[in-house]
């Protein structure tokens, strides 16, 4: 069998992924996570002295706390199987990436195991976030100094 023939055969046999269904699932589960986040944010605004501008920080940490509990009980991977990107894109997905790495390398010790591998998966997110924030701030600073836009 030639290489091209094999590829042709493989394409015929491989089932077509249900794109629309996957998108709908990701949309619903991702939306559900964001709705929970909004509820947590409102909770902080109403019961504590946080405003809309300052409620973001405690909300993010609470959502990561929820993700930590779900990851620890092995439930987050089930959500991930159903929703895909819907569970990976919100901040809970970032929390899941950090915590699952910590759990996986626990047997290698606290410093070299957990400490060294904690950001194995999520490190790139932190790095590119910081670097892109730096460059965006630089561009905005230059634009403000020239006088194109204001802060």
């Amino acid at each position: 069998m030639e290489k091209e023939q094999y590829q042709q055969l493989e394409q015929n046999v491989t089932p077509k992924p249900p794109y629309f269904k996957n998108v709908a699932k990701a949309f619903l589960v991702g939306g559900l996570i964001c709705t929970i986040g909004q509820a947590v944010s409102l909770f902080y605004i109403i019961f504590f002295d946080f405003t809309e501008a300052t409620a973001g920080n405690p909300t993010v940490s609470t959502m990561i706390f929820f993700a930590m509990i779900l990851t620890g009980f092995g439930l987050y991977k089930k959500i991930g199987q159903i929703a895909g990107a819907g569970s990976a894109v919100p901040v809970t997905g970032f929390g899941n990436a950090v915590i699952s790495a910590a759990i996986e390398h626990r047997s290698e010790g606290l410093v070299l195991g957990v400490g060294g591998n904690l950001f194995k998966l999520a490190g790139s997110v932190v790095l590119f976030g910081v670097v892109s924030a730096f460059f965006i701030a630089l561009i905005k600073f230059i634009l403000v100094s020239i006088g194109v836009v204001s802060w």
Partner: protein
Amino acid sequence: MKLLGIMLPLLVSLTLLSGCGEKEKFIVYGSPENEKEVETILKEEDYVDKTTVIQYDNSMLVATQIKPWHKWKKTKLEKKLQKKFDEKYPNKEVFVSADYKIFYEANKIKREQVEDNKLKDKIKKLKKLAKEET
């Protein structure tokens, strides 16, 4: 089918909730002087959804909520409204905020009919809170 089972009760409850949500869009607490004037100022701005105004001594707290699509420009609209009020009442101390926390607390003050001496402290605290950034 399973999806429908989740979505249907959600949609029904949402429609029911939006039907019951009709409330007063403009509330004044404290001295009722120039109530109509303030209302017309706010009616001119089509991006304002709901407003609660608290008047005391010579100052005014305008806690407003901006309509959803205009919320992208919330800080800019807030500044615009503040400027408008400052021009209209140059000898009054006006504080405009579009933050939900301020709006919620203003409604709470109205609901609980907070006394004059306590009101000042509360408003001072709210103003400090609105200026916080982190």
